[in-house]
Protein backbone atom coordinates (compact mmCIF):
# COMPACT_ATOMS: atom_id res chain seq x y z
CA UNK A 1 0.00 0.00 0.00
CA UNK A 2 1.25 3.51 -0.81
CA UNK A 3 0.67 5.65 2.25
CA UNK A 4 1.39 9.35 2.73
CA UNK A 5 1.71 10.52 6.33
CA UNK A 6 1.50 14.21 7.19
CA UNK A 7 2.80 15.60 10.47
CA UNK A 8 2.06 19.27 11.25
CA UNK A 9 5.05 19.83 13.53
CA UNK A 10 8.76 20.09 12.73
CA UNK A 11 10.16 16.62 12.27
CA UNK A 12 13.57 17.50 13.70
CA UNK A 13 12.12 18.73 17.00
CA UNK A 14 11.16 16.05 19.57
CA UNK A 15 7.47 15.71 20.35
CA UNK A 16 4.74 13.15 20.87
CA UNK A 17 3.08 13.56 17.47
CA UNK A 18 6.43 13.47 15.65
CA UNK A 19 7.50 10.27 17.44
CA UNK A 20 4.16 8.67 16.68
CA UNK A 21 4.44 9.50 12.96
CA UNK A 22 8.08 8.36 12.82
CA UNK A 23 7.40 5.05 14.57
CA UNK A 24 4.31 4.37 12.48
CA UNK A 25 6.20 5.14 9.25
CA UNK A 26 9.08 2.85 10.21
CA UNK A 27 6.74 0.07 11.25
CA UNK A 28 4.77 0.26 8.00
CA UNK A 29 7.97 0.31 5.93
CA UNK A 30 9.20 -2.77 7.78
CA UNK A 31 5.89 -4.42 6.85
CA UNK A 32 6.65 -3.78 3.18
CA UNK A 33 4.47 -0.73 2.55
CA UNK A 34 5.59 2.31 0.63
CA UNK A 35 5.54 5.27 3.00
CA UNK A 36 6.36 8.93 2.61
CA UNK A 37 6.22 11.44 5.48
CA UNK A 38 5.57 15.13 4.87
CA UNK A 39 6.33 17.59 7.66
CA UNK A 40 8.04 20.91 8.22
CA UNK A 41 11.70 20.85 9.18
CA UNK A 42 13.75 23.67 10.64
CA UNK A 43 17.24 22.62 9.74
CA UNK A 44 17.97 21.13 6.35
CA UNK A 45 21.44 19.99 7.44
CA UNK A 46 20.20 17.56 10.06
CA UNK A 47 20.15 13.94 8.92
CA UNK A 48 16.55 13.22 8.16
CA UNK A 49 15.27 9.76 7.24
CA UNK A 50 14.99 8.86 3.53
CA UNK A 51 11.20 8.56 3.66
CA UNK A 52 10.92 12.18 4.78
CA UNK A 53 9.94 15.18 2.63
CA UNK A 54 10.14 18.69 4.00
CA UNK A 55 7.40 21.19 3.25
CA UNK A 56 9.40 24.16 4.49
CA UNK A 57 10.43 25.78 7.73
CA UNK A 58 8.17 26.05 10.73
CA UNK A 59 7.67 29.46 12.30
CA UNK A 60 6.68 30.07 15.91
CA UNK A 61 3.21 31.66 15.92
CA UNK A 62 0.68 32.40 18.62
CA UNK A 63 -2.30 30.17 18.00
CA UNK A 64 -5.13 29.26 20.32
CA UNK A 65 -3.48 30.64 23.42
CA UNK A 66 0.00 29.17 23.10
CA UNK A 67 3.01 29.47 20.83
CA UNK A 68 3.29 26.66 18.32
CA UNK A 69 5.76 26.06 15.51
CA UNK A 70 3.64 25.89 12.40
CA UNK A 71 4.04 26.21 8.67
CA UNK A 72 1.87 28.06 6.19
CA UNK A 73 1.88 30.25 3.09
CA UNK A 74 1.64 29.69 -0.66
CA UNK A 75 5.09 28.11 -1.00
CA UNK A 76 4.27 25.41 1.56
CA UNK A 77 0.89 24.89 -0.03
CA UNK A 78 2.49 24.34 -3.42
CA UNK A 79 4.97 21.86 -1.90
CA UNK A 80 2.13 19.93 -0.27
CA UNK A 81 0.38 19.79 -3.64
CA UNK A 82 3.51 18.54 -5.38
CA UNK A 83 4.10 15.91 -2.70
CA UNK A 84 0.55 14.61 -3.09
CA UNK A 85 0.91 14.51 -6.87
CA UNK A 86 4.30 12.81 -6.94
CA UNK A 87 3.45 10.38 -4.17
CA UNK A 88 0.43 9.03 -6.05
CA UNK A 89 -0.78 7.59 -2.75
CA UNK A 90 -3.53 5.03 -2.20
CA UNK A 91 -4.34 6.84 1.02
CA UNK A 92 -3.12 9.79 3.06
CA UNK A 93 -3.08 9.74 6.84
CA UNK A 94 -3.14 13.22 8.37
CA UNK A 95 -2.17 13.95 11.95
CA UNK A 96 -3.87 16.83 13.76
CA UNK A 97 -5.83 17.79 10.63
CA UNK A 98 -7.28 21.00 12.04
CA UNK A 99 -4.01 22.55 13.19
CA UNK A 100 -3.09 25.38 10.80
CA UNK A 101 -0.11 23.64 9.29
CA UNK A 102 0.82 21.06 6.67
CA UNK A 103 -2.00 18.63 7.54
CA UNK A 104 -4.83 21.06 6.88
CA UNK A 105 -3.26 21.97 3.53
CA UNK A 106 -3.03 18.32 2.57
CA UNK A 107 -6.67 17.84 3.62
CA UNK A 108 -7.69 20.78 1.45
CA UNK A 109 -5.88 19.42 -1.59
CA UNK A 110 -6.17 15.65 -1.22
CA UNK A 111 -8.27 13.70 -3.70
CA UNK A 112 -7.45 10.23 -2.34
CA UNK A 113 -9.08 8.64 0.73
CA UNK A 114 -8.13 10.45 3.91
CA UNK A 115 -7.65 9.00 7.40
CA UNK A 116 -7.10 11.49 10.22
CA UNK A 117 -5.68 11.09 13.72
CA UNK A 118 -6.45 13.54 16.52
CA UNK A 119 -3.80 13.66 19.24
CA UNK A 120 -4.46 16.47 21.67
CA UNK A 121 -7.17 17.29 24.09
CA UNK A 122 -7.56 21.03 23.62
CA UNK A 123 -10.07 23.45 25.01
CA UNK A 124 -12.57 24.92 22.57
CA UNK A 125 -11.04 27.23 20.02
CA UNK A 126 -12.95 30.32 18.96
CA UNK A 127 -11.15 30.39 15.62
CA UNK A 128 -12.18 26.80 14.93
CA UNK A 129 -15.78 27.72 15.66
CA UNK A 130 -15.89 30.62 13.20
CA UNK A 131 -13.88 28.69 10.63
CA UNK A 132 -16.11 25.61 10.74
CA UNK A 133 -18.43 26.35 7.81
CA UNK A 134 -15.39 26.85 5.60
CA UNK A 135 -13.66 23.78 6.96
CA UNK A 136 -16.63 21.44 6.92
CA UNK A 137 -16.55 20.39 3.23
CA UNK A 138 -12.86 19.51 3.57
CA UNK A 139 -13.49 17.57 6.75
CA UNK A 140 -16.10 15.54 4.89
CA UNK A 141 -13.25 14.04 2.85
CA UNK A 142 -12.06 12.20 5.95
CA UNK A 143 -13.25 8.61 5.72
CA UNK A 144 -12.05 7.48 9.11
CA UNK A 145 -11.19 9.41 12.25
CA UNK A 146 -8.85 8.07 14.91
CA UNK A 147 -8.28 9.58 18.36
CA UNK A 148 -5.26 8.51 20.44
CA UNK A 149 -7.22 8.61 23.70
CA UNK A 150 -10.67 9.08 25.17
CA UNK A 151 -9.74 12.67 25.96
CA UNK A 152 -8.67 13.38 22.40
CA UNK A 153 -11.93 11.79 21.27
CA UNK A 154 -13.84 14.15 23.54
CA UNK A 155 -12.09 17.07 21.83
CA UNK A 156 -13.26 15.78 18.44
CA UNK A 157 -16.79 15.51 19.73
CA UNK A 158 -16.78 19.00 21.17
CA UNK A 159 -15.00 20.82 18.37
CA UNK A 160 -16.26 19.03 15.31
CA UNK A 161 -19.44 17.52 16.71
CA UNK A 162 -18.25 14.19 15.33
CA UNK A 163 -16.82 11.00 16.70
CA UNK A 164 -13.60 9.01 16.40
CA UNK A 165 -12.34 5.47 16.95
CA UNK A 166 -9.77 5.25 19.76
CA UNK A 167 -6.42 3.67 18.92
CA UNK A 168 -3.77 4.50 21.51
CA UNK A 169 -0.21 5.61 20.98
CA UNK A 170 2.24 2.80 20.32
CA UNK A 171 5.28 1.87 22.38
CA UNK A 172 8.21 -0.33 21.35
CA UNK A 173 7.69 -2.64 24.29
CA UNK A 174 10.76 -4.78 23.63
CA UNK A 175 13.09 -1.79 23.69
CA UNK A 176 12.03 -1.25 27.29
CA UNK A 177 11.54 -4.86 28.32
CA UNK A 178 15.02 -5.84 27.11
CA UNK A 179 16.94 -2.72 28.17
CA UNK A 180 19.98 -3.42 30.36
CA UNK A 181 19.84 -2.53 34.05
CA UNK A 182 22.06 0.38 35.10
CA UNK A 183 23.81 -0.08 38.49
CA UNK A 184 23.59 3.68 39.09
CA UNK A 185 19.80 3.43 39.28
CA UNK A 186 19.35 0.08 41.08
CA UNK A 187 18.13 0.41 44.66
CA UNK A 188 18.27 -1.86 47.69
CA UNK A 189 15.62 -2.67 50.30
CA UNK A 190 17.04 0.00 52.61
CA UNK A 191 17.98 2.49 49.88
CA UNK A 192 15.19 2.15 47.32
CA UNK A 193 15.11 4.18 44.12
CA UNK A 194 12.11 6.07 42.75
CA UNK A 195 11.93 7.46 39.20
CA UNK A 196 10.21 10.60 37.96
CA UNK A 197 10.05 11.51 34.27
CA UNK A 198 8.91 14.74 32.69
CA UNK A 199 9.61 18.46 32.48
CA UNK A 200 10.67 19.46 35.98
CA UNK A 201 9.47 23.07 35.71
CA UNK A 202 6.02 22.14 34.40
CA UNK A 203 3.72 22.20 37.47
CA UNK A 204 1.20 19.83 35.85
CA UNK A 205 3.81 17.05 35.79
CA UNK A 206 3.59 17.14 39.59
CA UNK A 207 7.24 16.91 40.69
CA UNK A 208 6.34 19.24 43.58
CA UNK A 209 3.90 16.64 44.95
CA UNK A 210 6.59 13.97 44.95
CA UNK A 211 9.07 16.30 46.67
CA UNK A 212 6.39 17.12 49.26
CA UNK A 213 6.03 13.40 49.98
CA UNK A 214 9.80 12.90 50.24
CA UNK A 215 10.32 13.84 53.94
CA UNK A 216 7.84 11.20 55.11
CA UNK A 217 9.43 8.52 52.93
CA UNK A 218 12.96 9.57 53.94
CA UNK A 219 12.02 9.31 57.62
CA UNK A 220 11.27 5.58 57.08
CA UNK A 221 13.94 4.91 54.45
CA UNK A 222 16.80 7.38 54.95
CA UNK A 223 18.66 5.95 51.96
CA UNK A 224 15.83 6.55 49.47
CA UNK A 225 16.80 8.22 46.22
CA UNK A 226 14.53 10.05 43.78
CA UNK A 227 15.93 9.98 40.25
CA UNK A 228 14.47 12.85 38.23
CA UNK A 229 14.85 12.70 34.46
CA UNK A 230 13.57 15.57 32.36
CA UNK A 231 14.52 18.96 31.00
CA UNK A 232 14.04 22.17 32.95
CA UNK A 233 15.82 24.52 35.35
CA UNK A 234 17.71 22.19 37.70
CA UNK A 235 18.87 24.89 40.13
CA UNK A 236 15.34 26.16 40.59
CA UNK A 237 14.11 22.70 41.62
CA UNK A 238 17.13 21.98 43.83
CA UNK A 239 16.33 25.15 45.78
CA UNK A 240 12.82 23.91 46.53
CA UNK A 241 14.14 20.81 48.32
CA UNK A 242 15.00 21.17 52.06
CA UNK A 243 18.80 21.31 52.53
CA UNK A 244 19.07 18.04 54.52
CA UNK A 245 17.23 16.10 51.81
CA UNK A 246 18.98 17.64 48.84
CA UNK A 247 21.30 14.64 48.32
CA UNK A 248 18.23 12.33 48.23
CA UNK A 249 17.17 13.94 44.92
CA UNK A 250 19.28 13.31 41.82
CA UNK A 251 18.45 15.63 38.95
CA UNK A 252 19.62 13.92 35.77
CA UNK A 253 18.39 16.56 33.31
CA UNK A 254 17.18 15.47 29.89
CA UNK A 255 18.14 11.83 29.21
CA UNK A 256 18.50 9.77 26.04
CA UNK A 257 15.93 7.15 25.08
CA UNK A 258 18.40 4.41 26.08
CA UNK A 259 19.02 5.97 29.49
CA UNK A 260 15.31 6.38 30.03
CA UNK A 261 14.77 2.68 29.35
CA UNK A 262 17.68 1.72 31.63
CA UNK A 263 16.33 3.99 34.37
CA UNK A 264 12.83 2.50 34.23
CA UNK A 265 14.30 -0.98 34.08
CA UNK A 266 16.40 -0.45 37.23
CA UNK A 267 14.27 1.49 39.71
CA UNK A 268 12.06 0.05 42.44
CA UNK A 269 9.08 2.29 41.68
CA UNK A 270 8.04 4.67 38.94
CA UNK A 271 6.05 7.65 40.21
CA UNK A 272 3.62 9.62 38.01
CA UNK A 273 2.26 12.41 40.25
CA UNK A 274 0.73 14.39 37.36
CA UNK A 275 -1.98 16.89 38.21
CA UNK A 276 -3.85 16.89 34.90
CA UNK A 277 -3.62 17.80 31.25
CA UNK A 278 -2.56 14.30 30.26
CA UNK A 279 -4.41 12.94 27.27
CA UNK A 280 -2.88 9.47 27.30
CA UNK A 281 0.13 8.79 29.54
CA UNK A 282 2.56 7.01 27.26
CA UNK A 283 5.26 7.15 29.92
CA UNK A 284 3.18 4.84 32.11
CA UNK A 285 3.19 2.29 29.33
CA UNK A 286 6.97 2.65 29.01
CA UNK A 287 7.37 2.08 32.74
CA UNK A 288 5.11 -0.99 32.63
CA UNK A 289 7.02 -2.33 29.61
CA UNK A 290 10.28 -1.95 31.53
CA UNK A 291 8.80 -3.77 34.51
CA UNK A 292 8.78 -0.81 36.89
CA UNK A 293 5.85 -0.93 39.33
CA UNK A 294 3.74 2.19 38.71
CA UNK A 295 2.40 4.59 41.32
CA UNK A 296 0.24 7.16 39.53
CA UNK A 297 -2.25 9.87 40.34
CA UNK A 298 -5.84 8.88 39.62
CA UNK A 299 -6.29 10.87 36.39
CA UNK A 300 -8.86 9.25 34.12
CA UNK A 301 -6.28 8.82 31.36
CA UNK A 302 -3.94 6.97 33.77
CA UNK A 303 -6.65 4.76 35.22
CA UNK A 304 -7.58 3.70 31.68
CA UNK A 305 -3.97 2.96 30.73
CA UNK A 306 -3.48 0.80 33.84
CA UNK A 307 -6.46 -1.32 32.82
CA UNK A 308 -9.33 -3.04 34.56
CA UNK A 309 -6.98 -5.40 36.45
CA UNK A 310 -4.80 -2.47 37.44
CA UNK A 311 -1.11 -2.83 36.68
CA UNK A 312 -0.29 -0.04 39.12
CA UNK A 313 -1.43 1.72 42.27
CA UNK A 314 -3.21 5.06 42.07
CA UNK A 315 -3.56 7.81 44.66
CA UNK A 316 -5.72 10.97 44.65
CA UNK A 317 -4.04 13.52 42.36
CA UNK A 318 -2.20 16.20 44.34
CA UNK A 319 -2.43 14.32 47.67
CA UNK A 320 1.19 14.17 48.90
CA UNK A 321 0.50 12.31 52.20
CA UNK A 322 -1.39 9.59 50.30
CA UNK A 323 1.50 9.33 47.84
CA UNK A 324 4.03 8.99 50.69
CA UNK A 325 1.92 6.31 52.35
CA UNK A 326 1.58 4.37 49.06
CA UNK A 327 5.32 4.55 48.39
CA UNK A 328 6.21 3.28 51.88
CA UNK A 329 3.68 0.44 51.63
CA UNK A 330 5.05 -0.75 48.30
CA UNK A 331 8.70 -0.51 49.32
CA UNK A 332 7.90 -2.71 52.33
CA UNK A 333 6.13 -5.27 50.14
CA UNK A 334 8.35 -6.76 47.40
CA UNK A 335 5.64 -9.34 46.65
CA UNK A 336 3.16 -6.71 45.58
CA UNK A 337 5.81 -4.90 43.54
CA UNK A 338 6.56 -8.11 41.65
CA UNK A 339 2.87 -8.69 41.04
CA UNK A 340 2.45 -5.14 39.68
CA UNK A 341 5.53 -5.48 37.49
CA UNK A 342 4.27 -8.77 36.03
CA UNK A 343 0.82 -7.37 35.34
CA UNK A 344 2.41 -4.26 33.83
CA UNK A 345 4.45 -6.27 31.38
CA UNK A 346 1.35 -8.09 30.21
CA UNK A 347 -0.68 -4.88 30.03
CA UNK A 348 2.05 -3.02 28.10
CA UNK A 349 1.81 -5.60 25.29
CA UNK A 350 -1.61 -4.17 24.32
CA UNK A 351 0.14 -0.91 23.48
CA UNK A 352 2.97 -2.47 21.51
CA UNK A 353 3.45 -1.03 18.04
CA UNK A 354 2.64 -4.37 16.45
CA UNK A 355 -0.81 -4.31 18.08
CA UNK A 356 -1.42 -0.59 17.49
CA UNK A 357 -0.20 -0.63 13.88
CA UNK A 358 -2.38 -3.61 13.00
CA UNK A 359 -5.38 -1.63 14.21
CA UNK A 360 -4.31 1.38 12.16
CA UNK A 361 -3.90 -0.95 9.18
CA UNK A 362 -7.47 -2.20 9.71
CA UNK A 363 -8.65 1.42 9.57
CA UNK A 364 -6.73 1.94 6.31
CA UNK A 365 -8.35 -1.14 4.81
CA UNK A 366 -11.82 0.02 5.83
CA UNK A 367 -11.15 3.50 4.41
CA UNK A 368 -10.08 1.96 1.09
CA UNK A 369 -13.13 -0.31 1.17
CA UNK A 370 -15.35 2.73 1.35
CA UNK A 371 -13.55 4.21 -1.63
CA UNK A 372 -14.06 1.12 -3.75
CA UNK A 373 -17.81 1.62 -3.72
CA UNK A 374 -17.57 5.21 -4.82
CA UNK A 375 -18.94 5.96 -8.28
CA UNK A 376 -16.46 7.71 -10.55
CA UNK A 377 -15.90 11.10 -9.03
CA UNK A 378 -16.91 14.07 -11.12
CA UNK A 379 -15.29 13.68 -14.52
CA UNK A 380 -14.35 17.35 -14.68
CA UNK A 381 -12.52 17.06 -11.37
CA UNK A 382 -9.18 18.08 -12.81
CA UNK A 383 -10.38 21.28 -14.44
CA UNK A 384 -10.50 24.59 -12.64
CA UNK A 385 -14.28 24.28 -12.46
CA UNK A 386 -13.98 20.82 -10.95
CA UNK A 387 -11.53 22.08 -8.36
CA UNK A 388 -13.88 24.91 -7.41
CA UNK A 389 -16.80 22.56 -7.05
CA UNK A 390 -14.77 20.01 -5.17
CA UNK A 391 -12.78 22.06 -2.72
CA UNK A 392 -15.90 23.98 -1.81
CA UNK A 393 -14.55 27.38 -0.96
CA UNK A 394 -18.04 28.46 -0.16
CA UNK A 395 -18.97 30.34 2.93
CA UNK A 396 -22.40 28.94 3.58
CA UNK A 397 -23.67 28.71 7.12
CA UNK A 398 -23.87 25.21 8.50
Amino acid at each position, binding site marked *: MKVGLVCPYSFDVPGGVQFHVRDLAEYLIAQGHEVSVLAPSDDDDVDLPPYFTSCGRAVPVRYNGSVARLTFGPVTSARVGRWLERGDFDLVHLHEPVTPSASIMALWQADVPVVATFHTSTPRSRAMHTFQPLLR*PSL*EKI*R*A*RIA*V*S*EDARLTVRRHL*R*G*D*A*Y*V*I*PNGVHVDRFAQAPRDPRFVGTSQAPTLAFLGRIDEPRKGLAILLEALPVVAARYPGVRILVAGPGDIDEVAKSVPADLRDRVELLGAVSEADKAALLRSVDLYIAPHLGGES*FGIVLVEAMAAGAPVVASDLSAFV*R*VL*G*SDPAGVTFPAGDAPALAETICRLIADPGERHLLADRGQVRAR*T*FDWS*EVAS*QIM*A*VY*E*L*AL*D*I*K*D*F*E*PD*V*LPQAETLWGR*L*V*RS*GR*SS*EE*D
Partner: protein
Amino acid sequence: MSDVDVLQWVTGLFLLVVAIAWYLSYSAARLDRLHSKVEGALLSLDAQLVRRAESALELAMSGELDPSSALIVADAATASLERHTESLTTEDPLDGANFAGRELVETDLTEALNAALSAEVLADVTSGESPASEAYSRLRASSMRVQMARKFHNEAVREVRRVRAKAVVRVFRLAGYASLPEAVVFDDAVSGMSDLG
Protein backbone atom coordinates in the same frame (compact mmCIF):
# COMPACT_ATOMS: atom_id res chain seq x y z
CA MET B 1 -33.26 54.93 -16.79
CA SER B 2 -30.24 55.15 -19.07
CA ASP B 3 -28.82 52.27 -21.09
CA VAL B 4 -25.79 52.07 -18.81
CA ASP B 5 -27.99 51.52 -15.79
CA VAL B 6 -29.88 48.74 -17.54
CA LEU B 7 -26.61 47.12 -18.55
CA GLN B 8 -25.36 47.26 -14.97
CA TRP B 9 -28.53 45.70 -13.68
CA VAL B 10 -28.51 42.96 -16.26
CA THR B 11 -24.86 42.17 -15.58
CA GLY B 12 -25.45 42.15 -11.86
CA LEU B 13 -28.45 39.89 -12.24
CA PHE B 14 -26.53 37.57 -14.54
CA LEU B 15 -23.66 37.27 -12.05
CA LEU B 16 -26.13 36.56 -9.27
CA VAL B 17 -27.78 33.80 -11.30
CA VAL B 18 -24.36 32.29 -12.09
CA ALA B 19 -23.42 32.41 -8.41
CA ILE B 20 -26.65 30.73 -7.37
CA ALA B 21 -26.27 28.10 -10.07
CA TRP B 22 -22.70 27.42 -8.99
CA TYR B 23 -23.74 27.12 -5.38
CA LEU B 24 -26.57 24.74 -6.14
CA SER B 25 -24.40 22.57 -8.33
CA TYR B 26 -21.66 22.60 -5.73
CA SER B 27 -24.10 21.61 -2.96
CA ALA B 28 -25.57 18.82 -5.07
CA ALA B 29 -22.09 17.47 -5.84
CA ARG B 30 -21.13 17.64 -2.19
CA LEU B 31 -24.26 15.82 -1.16
CA ASP B 32 -23.73 13.20 -3.83
CA ARG B 33 -20.21 12.55 -2.53
CA LEU B 34 -21.53 12.24 1.00
CA HIS B 35 -24.24 9.83 -0.08
CA SER B 36 -21.77 7.59 -1.83
CA LYS B 37 -19.58 7.69 1.26
CA VAL B 38 -22.50 6.45 3.39
CA GLU B 39 -23.22 3.80 0.79
CA GLY B 40 -19.61 2.61 0.79
CA ALA B 41 -19.45 2.69 4.58
CA LEU B 42 -22.65 0.66 4.91
CA LEU B 43 -21.48 -1.97 2.44
CA SER B 44 -18.16 -2.21 4.25
CA LEU B 45 -19.96 -2.60 7.59
CA ASP B 46 -22.06 -5.31 6.00
CA ALA B 47 -18.96 -7.12 4.74
CA GLN B 48 -17.38 -7.01 8.20
CA LEU B 49 -20.57 -8.30 9.82
CA VAL B 50 -20.57 -11.26 7.45
CA ARG B 51 -16.97 -11.99 8.38
CA ARG B 52 -17.80 -11.72 12.07
CA ALA B 53 -20.72 -14.12 11.74
CA GLU B 54 -18.61 -16.56 9.71
CA SER B 55 -15.78 -16.60 12.23
CA ALA B 56 -18.30 -16.96 15.08
CA LEU B 57 -19.76 -19.97 13.29
CA GLU B 58 -16.29 -21.37 12.77
CA LEU B 59 -15.54 -20.95 16.47
CA ALA B 60 -18.79 -22.69 17.36
CA MET B 61 -17.92 -25.62 15.07
CA SER B 62 -14.37 -25.93 16.43
CA GLY B 63 -15.46 -28.24 19.23
CA GLU B 64 -13.69 -26.13 21.79
CA LEU B 65 -16.90 -24.67 23.22
CA ASP B 66 -19.29 -26.80 25.23
CA PRO B 67 -22.15 -28.01 23.03
CA SER B 68 -24.79 -25.74 24.51
CA SER B 69 -22.69 -22.54 24.12
CA ALA B 70 -21.71 -23.67 20.65
CA LEU B 71 -25.34 -24.11 19.69
CA ILE B 72 -26.29 -20.66 21.00
CA VAL B 73 -23.44 -18.99 19.10
CA ALA B 74 -24.12 -21.00 15.94
CA ASP B 75 -27.79 -20.08 16.09
CA ALA B 76 -27.09 -16.34 16.44
CA ALA B 77 -24.39 -16.45 13.74
CA THR B 78 -26.66 -18.27 11.31
CA ALA B 79 -29.44 -15.77 11.96
CA SER B 80 -27.01 -12.97 11.12
CA LEU B 81 -25.83 -14.66 7.93
CA GLU B 82 -29.39 -15.28 6.79
CA ARG B 83 -30.40 -11.69 7.36
CA HIS B 84 -27.49 -10.58 5.26
CA THR B 85 -28.70 -12.37 2.17
CA GLU B 86 -32.14 -10.83 2.47
CA SER B 87 -31.07 -7.20 2.49
CA LEU B 88 -28.87 -5.00 0.37
CA THR B 89 -29.88 -6.63 -2.87
CA THR B 90 -31.61 -3.63 -4.41
CA GLU B 91 -30.10 -1.44 -7.09
CA ASP B 92 -29.63 1.49 -4.74
CA PRO B 93 -27.95 0.32 -1.54
CA LEU B 94 -29.25 3.38 0.26
CA ASP B 95 -32.67 1.74 0.12
CA GLY B 96 -31.33 -0.58 2.75
CA ALA B 97 -29.80 2.30 4.64
CA ASN B 98 -32.08 1.81 7.60
CA PHE B 99 -30.20 -1.46 8.08
CA ALA B 100 -33.51 -3.29 7.82
CA GLY B 101 -33.79 -4.04 11.51
CA ARG B 102 -30.65 -6.13 11.58
CA GLU B 103 -29.56 -4.31 14.73
CA LEU B 104 -31.40 -6.84 16.88
CA VAL B 105 -29.84 -9.82 15.13
CA GLU B 106 -26.36 -8.40 15.49
CA THR B 107 -26.91 -7.48 19.14
CA ASP B 108 -28.04 -11.06 19.69
CA LEU B 109 -24.83 -12.36 18.16
CA THR B 110 -22.76 -10.06 20.36
CA GLU B 111 -24.66 -11.22 23.43
CA ALA B 112 -24.33 -14.88 22.47
CA LEU B 113 -20.58 -14.44 22.01
CA ASN B 114 -20.23 -12.63 25.33
CA ALA B 115 -22.19 -15.36 27.11
CA ALA B 116 -20.15 -18.14 25.51
CA LEU B 117 -16.72 -16.53 25.84
CA SER B 118 -16.34 -16.39 29.60
CA ALA B 119 -12.92 -15.69 31.07
CA GLU B 120 -12.07 -19.42 31.41
CA VAL B 121 -13.15 -20.21 27.87
CA LEU B 122 -11.15 -17.25 26.60
CA ALA B 123 -8.05 -18.51 28.38
CA ASP B 124 -8.60 -21.87 26.66
CA VAL B 125 -9.16 -20.65 23.13
CA THR B 126 -6.31 -18.14 23.20
CA SER B 127 -3.76 -20.68 24.42
CA GLY B 128 -2.32 -21.16 20.94
CA GLU B 129 -2.42 -24.94 20.74
CA SER B 130 -6.19 -24.91 20.73
CA PRO B 131 -7.75 -25.58 17.32
CA ALA B 132 -10.14 -22.70 18.05
CA SER B 133 -7.40 -20.11 18.48
CA GLU B 134 -7.27 -19.26 14.79
CA ALA B 135 -11.03 -18.88 14.57
CA TYR B 136 -10.96 -16.77 17.70
CA SER B 137 -8.28 -14.43 16.39
CA ARG B 138 -10.31 -14.02 13.20
CA LEU B 139 -13.36 -13.29 15.33
CA ARG B 140 -11.43 -10.73 17.31
CA ALA B 141 -10.16 -9.01 14.17
CA SER B 142 -13.58 -8.90 12.53
CA SER B 143 -15.29 -7.73 15.73
CA MET B 144 -12.83 -4.85 15.93
CA ARG B 145 -13.49 -4.00 12.28
CA VAL B 146 -17.23 -4.10 12.90
CA GLN B 147 -16.78 -1.51 15.64
CA MET B 148 -14.65 0.66 13.39
CA ALA B 149 -16.89 0.32 10.34
CA ARG B 150 -20.01 1.11 12.36
CA LYS B 151 -18.38 4.24 13.78
CA PHE B 152 -17.19 5.43 10.37
CA HIS B 153 -20.59 4.72 8.87
CA ASN B 154 -22.39 6.67 11.55
CA GLU B 155 -19.97 9.56 11.06
CA ALA B 156 -20.83 9.64 7.35
CA VAL B 157 -24.53 9.50 8.21
CA ARG B 158 -24.13 12.43 10.55
CA GLU B 159 -22.48 14.45 7.78
CA VAL B 160 -25.21 13.66 5.25
CA ARG B 161 -27.93 14.56 7.68
CA ARG B 162 -26.22 17.82 8.56
CA VAL B 163 -26.11 18.88 4.92
CA ARG B 164 -29.61 17.63 4.17
CA ALA B 165 -31.00 19.68 7.03
CA LYS B 166 -30.01 22.87 5.24
CA ALA B 167 -32.84 24.98 3.83
CA VAL B 168 -31.30 25.24 0.36
CA VAL B 169 -31.02 21.47 0.06
CA ARG B 170 -34.62 20.95 1.11
CA VAL B 171 -36.12 23.77 -0.99
CA PHE B 172 -34.31 22.78 -4.19
CA ARG B 173 -34.66 19.05 -3.47
CA LEU B 174 -30.96 18.55 -4.04
CA ALA B 175 -31.07 15.13 -2.43
CA GLY B 176 -33.38 13.84 -5.17
CA TYR B 177 -35.11 10.64 -4.17
CA ALA B 178 -32.29 9.25 -2.03
CA SER B 179 -33.68 8.08 1.29
CA LEU B 180 -32.37 9.73 4.44
CA PRO B 181 -29.67 7.45 5.88
CA GLU B 182 -29.85 6.50 9.53
CA ALA B 183 -27.22 5.73 12.10
CA VAL B 184 -26.77 2.03 12.86
CA VAL B 185 -26.88 1.35 16.58
CA PHE B 186 -26.31 -2.06 18.14
CA ASP B 187 -24.13 -3.63 20.80
CA ASP B 188 -20.85 -4.59 19.13
CA ALA B 189 -18.60 -4.89 22.20
CA VAL B 190 -17.42 -8.50 22.19
CA SER B 191 -15.63 -9.44 25.41
CA GLY B 192 -11.97 -10.31 25.45
CA MET B 193 -11.25 -7.51 23.01
CA SER B 194 -8.54 -5.17 24.19
CA ASP B 195 -9.78 -2.36 26.42
CA LEU B 196 -7.42 0.25 25.07
CA GLY B 197 -6.76 3.89 25.77
